[in-house]
Each structure stands twice: as C-alpha cells, then as structure tokens.
C-alpha cells in the first residue's frame, strides 16, 4: 500500500514536471543575461571559456560561498569520522602490480590535474574538475601503500592557504578601487595561457583547495 501510494505520487510528479517542461521555451532563453555575458566577456574579462568568466568574474562571490559550503562539509565529515583515540585498522598492502601502477599514475595524474586547473580559462575544466584529479593522484598512492599515511596537517595547511589566497585576491581588487573579486591585471591576448587577468590565479587557488579538501575527506573515509 505504501509502495503503491509512493508510485502513484511519483507518476503524478513526473506528469507535472513533463507538463511544466512542455510549456517552457527551451533553448530560447527568456532572460537576456546569457546573451549579454556572451557579448561582453571578450572585452571585459578576456577569458576564452565563458563559463569560467561567469563562475569566477560575474558570480565570483557565489563561488566563494560554494567553497565555503564544500569546506563546511569536508570539515564536518572529518569531525564526524576522526578516529577519536580508537586505533586505526591496519590496512592490507595492495601488492606489486597496484603499487607499481600507482607510482606510474601519480605523475601523470598530477600533470593532468594541473593542466586542467591552469587551462580553466581557455578550455572546459577548471579548478573544481582539476582539483578532483589532483585529489585522486594522492589518494591512489595512499590506497596502494599500507604504510603511507596522509599528512592531515599538510592538507589543512594547503587548504587554508588556498582559501586565504582566493579571499586575498578578492580583497586586493576591493582595495584597488574595484569590486570584491573583480578581475585584476590586464586581459592579455584572448586564448593565451597568461590571459584573463587574475582568473587563472583564482582557479589555481580553487583547485588546490578542492584537491586538499577531497584528499582529506577520502582519507577520512578510508581510515
């Protein structure tokens, strides 16, 4: 009875959503914001990836809030899962193949991660995506080697410094006469690696912060 009722409820919900979606002018956006941003970004921000311009320049303070939420979630999960005096379970060693594989993967993952982070203003990707790859680089070697313990102090230090750098760049723009988190520096040539002002620096801070947070979160979950 309970299952039947919930199935009926879900069918109704699906019909409601489909009815709403059929009325929506999909593809023809009723707001002019997107078109405006598309037009202005090359001159105002100078980043080839316009989604990055939205995330870091037009909605930069939103991204700061997003980082705060991720920080709160990672910190709370760490508090909930911290061993609290209980002895850590010894982990089994992963064997030769996995250890060699993780050693091979580590530099490649680092390169790919930093590539995705540093090209966030040019190609699809950015600090969040690249940060996840960086976290995976450290987590793979942590999983493969039983004797290796993640340094939670180091991870916290990276995370704190990256977060402070993000806010510091925003404050520098504020005291430089602009708005908080307004892009600094020259735009440079559109599509060049060093372009779009302070956006690559902001994304580097985001990437390091996300990478350190996810690495410590995964290490807590694994312990």
């Amino acid at each position, binding site marked *: 009875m309970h299952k039947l009722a919930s199935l009926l409820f879900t069918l109704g919900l699906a019909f409601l959503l489909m009815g709403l979606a059929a009325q929506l002018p999909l593809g023809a956006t009723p*707001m002019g914001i997107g078109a405006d941003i598309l037009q202005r970004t*090359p001159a105002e921000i100078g980043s080839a990836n316009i989604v990055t311009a939205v995330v870091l320049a037009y909605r930069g303070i939103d991204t700061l809030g997003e980082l705060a939420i991720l920080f709160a979630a990672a910190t709370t999960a760490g508090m909930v899962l911290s061993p609290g005096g209980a002895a850590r379970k010894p982990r089994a060693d992963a064997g030769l193949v996995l250890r060699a594989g993780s050693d091979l993967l580590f530099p490649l993952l680092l390169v790919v991660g930093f590539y995705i982070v540093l090209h966030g203003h040019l190609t699809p990707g950015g600090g969040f995506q690249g940060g996840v790859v960086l976290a995976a680089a450290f987590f793979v070697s942590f999983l493969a080697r039983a004797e290796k313990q993640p340094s939670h102090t180091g991870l916290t230090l990276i995370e704190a410094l990256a977060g402070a750098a993000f806010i510091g760049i925003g404050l520098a723009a504020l005291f430089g006469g602009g708005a908080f988190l307004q892009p600094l520096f020259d735009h440079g040539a559109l599509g060049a690696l060093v372009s779009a002002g302070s956006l690559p620096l902001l994304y580097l801070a985001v990437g390091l912060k996300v990478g350190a947070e996810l690495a410590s*979160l995964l290490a807590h979950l694994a312990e």
Partner: protein
Amino acid sequence: MIMNLNPPDLITLLVAGGVGLIAIGAVGLAVSRHLLRLVLALGLAEAGANLLLVVAGYRWDAVAPILAGAAPAGAMVDPVPQAMVLTAIVIGVGVQALAVALLIRVKEAYGTLDIRELKVLLERDISAAAGLAPPCSAHGPDYPHPPGAALPVPLATSKESA
C-alpha cells in the same frame, strides 16, 4: 543515433531523461528503507535536476560557450545554467560525502542502516536520555524494548493524561 534525431525530438528526449531521473530518485526516496539507498536516490534526483537545468540553456543550433578565435563564431549556448550546474554538482558532492560520513557513524553505533529498526532504536535512546516514558503503550505490539531489558520508570505525565 542521437545525432539523427530532429532538434525538437532531441530536446524532448533530454527533458524526458531529466524528468525520468528525478522520478526514479523520488521512487527510491519513497520506497527504499536502507539509508545508503536513500543517499543514492537523492544523488539520482540531483542528476536529473542538473540535466534539466543544462537543457534549459541548450540550443540545438549553437556551440559550446568557448571562444575559438578573437570573434565569437556563430551562436553559443547560454553559459549561466552551465555555471550554476557546476556549483550544484560541487555542492552535491559535499552533501553526499557528509551523508556517507554520518552513515558510517550510524552503522558503527547501531549496527544497522534500516530506517525502521533505527526508528525504534532512536526513540528508545531519546526517551531514555530525556527520562520520559517511551512514546507508546507498554502493552502494544511495537513496544520498543526487548523482553527482559530494564524498563524506564513511566512518569506521571504519560500519554493518557496529556
């Protein structure tokens, strides 16, 4: 196969996929009694919502909002929904990681993740901690104490007098 569809059909397909994911997640939320399955169902519904948001800015005749040269080449899709979905995905990851961390502790404390068993155990613990009588009759079938366990002393302000 997707490329051969007409643009309106493609958008209908994508919207149906998003709504379908939300519906599957809602069914999972309503039907499943295992807490980890609830978290997974929430993730499915979240994926559907994200897909609907991206489709809202989709145009079949436009390219991705990335400038290839100095001038924008042709029409580009709306970048605002994509940036919002990026935010939503990151927050979803944080929420799910926190939920799983809490589930690990629940499993350690109670040894089960079934919400019906957890409800009984939690009600017993909350009543014991507050010093209240358990919220049901001692003669009922759901009395939340195993036979032989020490019963808390019922207070004068029990359910019948309230």
